[in-house]
């Protein structure tokens, strides 16, 4: 690194950050330099959802643990017309640790290196009455008394692009172990080469089958190797842990996103559920399907044991399990 030009790097970084437009976030006061990014994949007007905000610093630290406050302002619908009045009351967002990382229970918000804490802040349930672009302003106090504020813009859709809670679940025939002509890596991207599928218990049945049999199911759509969000592996591991603990309450299914990553071929079941009209497909997503075949819960990006476990524990034992 010493041989590289530091001023050049600074210019590069500044140039790289010079784009405009409404996307995900903006910078905070210069003292801490915390930057906010809304990482929720989908928020829909008039539907209760979960707003997830990641807070990071320029030196690659995450804000972790505790709670932060959120305030909201409406920016408009993207047209040139002045924005109609729209408001949302302040909310509190609690830290959601990426599964497998420290939860920091009882701790105040703290800046951590990735190895010591990683996660996002979630406000749930939260319902926005107006579709369009909103600004979230996150604020809080660190353990040393430092105050911080960071803002991030986000979009609220006027209709859901992903199967929503209460909807009938798509009856997808996802590939399972033993299906002829299906490579192991198409079931789990970690099974490339001669590697075994880490969680074979997640690949024994299809979504269509569990719905037909009237069984509840927890389904995770993820690609642990080729994940863009970096949350797929930990979330998939969490679902495998829950499968071991609650095998008598629900079926557990992992749908790998890619049939063939190098060719860009997506598994049909993943496309059934996650591919939007604009051609985007984001992962991971986790869905709880009820015994009635309807979607009982959905979680994008990060989902934690504390969010899922009470729901699984509340399910009655399955007959024949």
């Amino acid at each position, binding site marked *: 690194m010493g041989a590289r030009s530091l001023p050049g*790097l600074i210019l590069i970084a500044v*140039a790289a950050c010079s784009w*405009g437009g409404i996307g995900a*976030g903006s910078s905070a006061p210069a003292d801490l330099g915390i*930057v906010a990014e809304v990482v929720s994949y989908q928020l829909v007007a008039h539907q209760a959802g979960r707003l997830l905000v990641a807070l990071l610093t320029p030196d690659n630290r995450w804000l972790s643990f505790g709670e932060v406050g959120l305030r909201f302002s409406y920016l408009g619908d993207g047209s040139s017309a002045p924005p109609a009045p729209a408001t949302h009351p302040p909310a509190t967002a609690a830290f959601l640790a990426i599964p497998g990382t420290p939860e920091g229970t009882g701790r105040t918000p703290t800046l951590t290196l*990735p190895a010591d804490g990683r996660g996002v802040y979630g406000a749930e349930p939260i319902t926005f009455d107006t579709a369009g672009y909103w600004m979230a302003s996150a604020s809080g106090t660190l353990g040393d008394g430092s105050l911080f504020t960071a803002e991030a813009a986000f979009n609220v859709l006027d209709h859901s692009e992903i199967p929503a809670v209460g909807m009938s679940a798509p009856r997808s025939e996802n590939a399972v172990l033993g299906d002829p002509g299906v490579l192991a890596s198409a079931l789990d991207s970690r099974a490339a080469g001669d590697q075994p599928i880490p969680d074979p218990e997640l690949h024994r049945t299809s979504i269509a089958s569990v719905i037909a049999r009237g069984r509840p199911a927890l389904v995770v759509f993820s690609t642990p*190797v080729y994940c863009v969000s970096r949350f797929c592996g930990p979330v998939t591991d969490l679902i495998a842990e829950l499968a071991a603990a609650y095998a008598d309450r629900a079926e557990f299914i992992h749908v790998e996103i890619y049939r063939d990553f*190098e060719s860009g071929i997506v598994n049909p079941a993943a496309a059934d559920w996650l591919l939007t009209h604009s051609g985007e497909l984001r992962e991971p997503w986790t869905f709880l399907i009820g015994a009635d075949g309807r979607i009982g819960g959905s979680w994008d990006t990060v989902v934690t044991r504390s969010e899922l476990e009470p729901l699984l524990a509340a399910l009655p034992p399955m007959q024949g399990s």
Partner: protein
Amino acid sequence: MWALHDPAAHARIAAAAILAFALAGCRATVTPTQAVTASGSLVVVAAAAEDGLCRAAAALPDVGSARRDFENVAHAALHELAAAPDLARSLAARVLETMQVVERDIAASASPAVLAPDLDALRSSTEAAIRALGLPASPCLP
């Protein structure tokens, strides 16, 4: 984690900060994939990926230190590198696949004898990706 008496340490710290600025700050307005298309920002990402992998390899046999170097310096940069739109999917796949092997090793608290060759494989796939993007790949300094 950095030896501050090391003349290169300050530059590394600054570079890491710049990297994070590029990675995190740029997400303010663009997608991660777009972030690496900005003129020059990929140079910073590539340097951080290499630097983190060199540090992790040098930290062995201390697996804990290697894990921290990998997670704190290399991990995010490797994801950004693999997401570079001009990178062939086959090369991106190799980066992500070899990275997953290292992550598996770390999660399993693998021995240095297991982790070292897997870090080497990841560094090789990373270098291949960097060179394919027309960027200079640097060897690990002793």
